[in-house]
């Protein structure tokens, strides 16, 4: 069977460049700026090992004498200069932010992908089969929605931490965090996909697919799924901003990324200890990075929601 969705690369690029969505993107300053900031932050996180002046987690490169160097001033003992200063252990704040953002983004993106896959699968099943499948899945969603998702994530983190043997807890913390945030976030996806699936199910093309004997599984994945994806994209973008903030919150509270693998939230937690003694930069720069990241992704999601909403056109 030939695959109709596969078009040659140049044509596809042309189609993207000519699309309404790209036009809306090109002409919206908010979208352009937030996309630029997001891309810049993501790229600097991905290429952190190339950009960072030191590897902050390599004990050999650390010099305790460099501790508490203010930004842009030479250290009193070693005379070394650091762009954004150093923390108590002499780690370069600029480098820790780059590596921290890596972990924040990794946790955020993986958690959202996990939530998305889970939500899409459950939403498709509920919407397509209806009946008992639908009742059970959607009741579970209702129960979970009774609670704010950050509370659900905290609870899942606590339970998962309890199940992990003590000696693996620090290594597993990142994965436990992804599991907690992902599981706390699937309901949004499931609800939207279920609603859209119920609409699509009644259309002629699904009946036609039935008629030529396509199995239910293939109809769901190959035929219905592509038609319900655009709201999923919007939710995914907004969820990413929320997941990054949720990760930072959990890590800040001390129930997330461990100090050995600090995310932006962990860095803020560490920085808070030195706020009272006047070393403001240890907290200030990670906090600004977190804000820039969350805000730009959020604005991008808001713009995408408006751009894809047919009622606003």
């Amino acid at each position, binding site marked *: 069977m030939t695959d109709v969705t596969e078009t040659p690369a140049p044509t596809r690029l042309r189609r993207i460049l000519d699309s309404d969505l790209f036009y809306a993107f090109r002409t919206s300053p908010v979208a352009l700026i937030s996309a630029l900031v997001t891309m810049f932050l993501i790229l600097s996180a991905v290429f952190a090992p190339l950009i960072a002046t030191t590897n902050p987690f390599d004990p050999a490169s650390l010099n305790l004498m460099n501790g508490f160097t203010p930004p842009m001033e030479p250290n009193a003992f070693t005379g070394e200069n650091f762009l954004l200063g150093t923390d108590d252990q002499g780690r370069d704040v600029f480098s820790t932010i780059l590596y921290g953002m890596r972990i924040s983004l990794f946790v955020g993106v993986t958690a959202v992908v996990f939530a998305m896959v889970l939500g899409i699968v459950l939403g498709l099943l509920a919407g397509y089969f209806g009946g008992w499948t639908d009742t059970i899945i959607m009741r579970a969603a209702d129960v979970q929605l009774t609670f704010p998702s950050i509370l659900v994530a905290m*609870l899942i983190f606590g339970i998962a931490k*309890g199940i992990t043997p003590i000696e693996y807890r620090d290594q597993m913390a990142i994965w436990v965090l992804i599991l907690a945030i992902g599981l706390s976030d699937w309901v949004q996806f499931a609800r939207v996909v279920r609603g859209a699936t119920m609409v699509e199910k009644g259309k002629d093309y699904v009946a036609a697919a039935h008629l030529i004997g396509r199995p239910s599984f293939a109809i769901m994945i190959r035929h219905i799924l592509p038609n319900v994806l655009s709201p999923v994209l919007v939710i995914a973008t907004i969820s990413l901003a929320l997941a990054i903030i949720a990760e930072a919150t959990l890590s800040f509270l001390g129930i997330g990324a461990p100090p050995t693998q600090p995310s932006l939230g962990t860095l*803020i937690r560490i920085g808070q200890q030195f706020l009272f003694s006047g070393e403001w930069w240890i907290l200030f720069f990670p906090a600004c990075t*977190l804000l820039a990241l969350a805000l730009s992704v959020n604005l991008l999601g808001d713009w995408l929601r408006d751009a894809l909403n047919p009622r606003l056109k």
Partner: protein
Amino acid sequence: MLSFMLRRVGQSILVLLVVGLVAFSMFRFVGDPIDNMLGQERTLEDIERLEQQLGLDRPFPVQYLRFLEGAIQGNFGVSYRQGREVSEILLERAPATLELAAVSAVLAILLGIALGVYTAIRRDGFVANFIMSTSLIGVSLPTFLIGILLIYLFSVELNWLPSFGRGEVVDLGGWTTGLLTASGLKSLILPSITLGLYQMTLIMRLVRSEMLEVLRQDYIRFARARGLADRTIHFRHALKNTLVPVVTIIGLQLGAIIAFAIITETVFQWPGMGLLFINAIQFVDIPVMAAYLMLISVMFVAINLIVDILYAFIDPRLRVAGK
């Protein structure tokens, strides 16, 4: 109406049963409490004694029944970490959280409605625009950063307000309150602003958009034509009709305030239930986690139930359509 209420009550009980099952599974399957309490150096006798003491040697159904029986009586066993009755610890911590949540809620409601009305009436004014754009920042800042920002400004730089704890408290027959002492009140200011800010912006934006909607209606134009004072129109006629959705949001946000108190309490080292819960997660103290979960679910479910039933009373259309 009665069947609607009964169905809602039934749903609420179902939610509580599910949460109860989660809480019990936590007790039964998560972590090894013996490990947590005894640490590395322990003897077999120690382990056996503790197992008997905690009831961990009984068969599964017996433990389950014991749990249900205990939960209904508010008995969640002994904290693994503190070695005290969980209910006792929770009762001791509850006043701090409830006081903080109540003050934040009142602050959010009063300021939210007042600012919402103001920004709706002066919709093009400079101050109103300023408030609206500031509120955007308030929504996107994570709670813990707001808390840190306030601490830095008012405790570290200006040294006006305490940065942690409840200050002096007065014991009123088991209920400790910080509302009666000067230091208690001062300690309450920063945490309650931190906790209430998000809800305040939410209420403000809702009241504003509802007010703008209502102010366009014909009966407002007629009221103006009749020559009624602006004050009367805005408060007697317009505000009153915006309150139905606002009441719903306020009701639902009360639950969120109690949940988000966890974050605020950690930032300000406020000795409430939220801080207890975070510490319980850090040390995998299952009885405390389970008890907190049950307690907060009862609160949430009760709030949701009351809001739904209130709403059905206010808006008759919902009584039939409710699914």
